[in-house]
């Protein structure tokens, strides 16, 4: 699943280089109840751990600039690919419970010492649940735009809401009906970079092209994202944002919460005013100006500095 230099042409080999980006110092696999998960590590193996979870539809290669900066600050940085994502196995089924079990299995494989958890987007949300399940394993938490908004949905007439839900439900079921034959569309490296750019409008072309070499694989007919085609963004379900938001207040560890200002397709549009009433006692909330949902991918240096300052203050 990992692209090797031999399979790439000169242009693609050039794309696989990006200033500041460094492939993991170590890679390993963790068997989580039958699902084989890919784990990447940067930094000294004996250093304290920062344990990172990527967002939905993302992959650990998006940490290739950010993680080395944290490692240079004196940490062992661990990033795992969630089931169906990156270089981890595609699974027959996916769920919140399954992701939490996978996270805890990778945590167990990493260290017995309490560690700093860091999560982006969905990775921030599953980390929030994991801390509630296993608080003894965690000493601090960095949540990068993974705090769901508590705001009620926009005011829509009931019959309009019914139509929206009907479309969503039949769309999801139609996707499931076709899922057994689904493969991701093959494209050029530049084509995939352009598609990712729609989600990340402020990333440079070179950074986007690099990310393709990490999140996609080169097949005989072209490049395709490694993410399981059975997965589908968005959706519906019984989960309510307020359950997650209200429980932030109960977190027993120091929290650094990062929020963005720029509204984007994958973003959650959570504002500081939404979150403030639910912050735990030891919390710091920072809104980065002019930045979108993928904060650590857009501004790795700035975010690494914030995280390193936060963890240094823990020790003080």
């Amino acid at each position, binding site marked *: 699943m990992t692209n090797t230099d031999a399979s790439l042409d000169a242009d693609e080999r050039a794309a696989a280089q990006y200033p500041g980006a460094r492939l993991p110092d170590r890679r390993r696999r963790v068997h989580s*109840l*039958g699902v084989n998960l890919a784990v990447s590590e940067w930094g000294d193996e004996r250093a304290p751990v920062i344990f990172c979870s990527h967002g939905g539809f993302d992959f650990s290669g998006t940490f290739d600039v950010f993680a080395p900066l944290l490692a240079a600050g004196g940490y062992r940085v661990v990033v795992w690919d969630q089931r169906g994502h990156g270089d981890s196995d595609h699974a*027959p*089924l996916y769920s919140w419970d399954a992701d939490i079990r996978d996270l805890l299995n990778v945590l167990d494989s990493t260290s017995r010492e309490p560690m700093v958890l860091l999560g982006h987007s969905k990775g921030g949300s599953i980390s929030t649940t994991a801390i509630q*399940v296993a608080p003894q394993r965690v000493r601090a938490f960095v949540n990068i735009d993974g705090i769901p908004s508590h705001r009620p949905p926009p005011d829509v007439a009931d019959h309009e809401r019914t139509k929206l839900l*009907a479309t969503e439900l039949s769309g*999801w079921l139609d996707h499931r009906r076709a899922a*057994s034959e689904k493969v991701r569309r093959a494209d050029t490296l530049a084509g995939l970079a352009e598609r990712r750019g729609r989600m990340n409008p402020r990333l440079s072309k070179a950074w986007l092209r690099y990310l393709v070499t990490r999140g996609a694989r080169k097949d005989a007919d072209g490049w395709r994202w490694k993410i399981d085609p059975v997965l589908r963004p968005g959706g519906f379900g*019984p989960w309510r944002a307020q359950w997650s938001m209200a429980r932030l207040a109960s977190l027993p560890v120091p929290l650094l919460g990062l929020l963005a200002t720029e509204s984007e397709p994958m973003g959650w549009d959570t504002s500081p005013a939404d979150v403030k009433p639910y912050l735990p006692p030891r919390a710091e909330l920072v809104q980065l100006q002019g930045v979108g949902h993928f904060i650590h991918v857009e501004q790795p240096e700035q975010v690494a500095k914030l995280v390193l300052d936060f963890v240094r203050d823990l020790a003080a």
Partner: protein
Amino acid sequence: MKTTRLRHARIELALHELRPGTGRALLLLHGLGERSPSALPAFAESWPGSVFALDFSGHGESGCSVGGGYTAEVLMGDADTALRLLADATLLGRGLGAYVALLLAGARPTHVRGAVLCDGLGLAGGGAEAATPSVVFPNPHALAPPDPFALVELARDVRPPDYATAFVRQANELSGLERPFSVCCAEKPDWLEAVLREPGVQSASIEDALAYYAKRG
């Protein structure tokens, strides 16, 4: 009994034909940890059309996941896979299968011609609100089916009343049926109490409910 193998994403499902027929199918959905009946139940004898029963993912003769991932919505997708073959059907679900029948009746309102909700295992699920989270690691070597992951996950799956009633409203608005739902349950968890307060939902015996839908197109 004829069994058809269907594929829902990566899981192979077993759909059992308990009795052939030409009229609209009755599709039976079993409860949590159960499997399809091996013979036609007495209550279905007077049904005018064919009678089918589906084994959900992780149950009966259907395949299992690896490392879990079961949700009521996945099981709705299982039932929808059967519905694709049957075109139109009346659903009769026990317990967990009753909740799945409710979801599918709201999601495919023009293809589900009535949903009969009956007592059975797994009717309550994990309650109306998210409980304090905990993680259970089922024994991956336990005898299956049913898949121990399915038993744990589907027993904890949260069922908010307003989520359940959203599906009732879908069926009311889009199915063209006057009463898309018949409730035949003694146990009434919060989601079902809320469903019973909605228009388009009748309390009935199983026999009366089936007779009601048998007469409607």
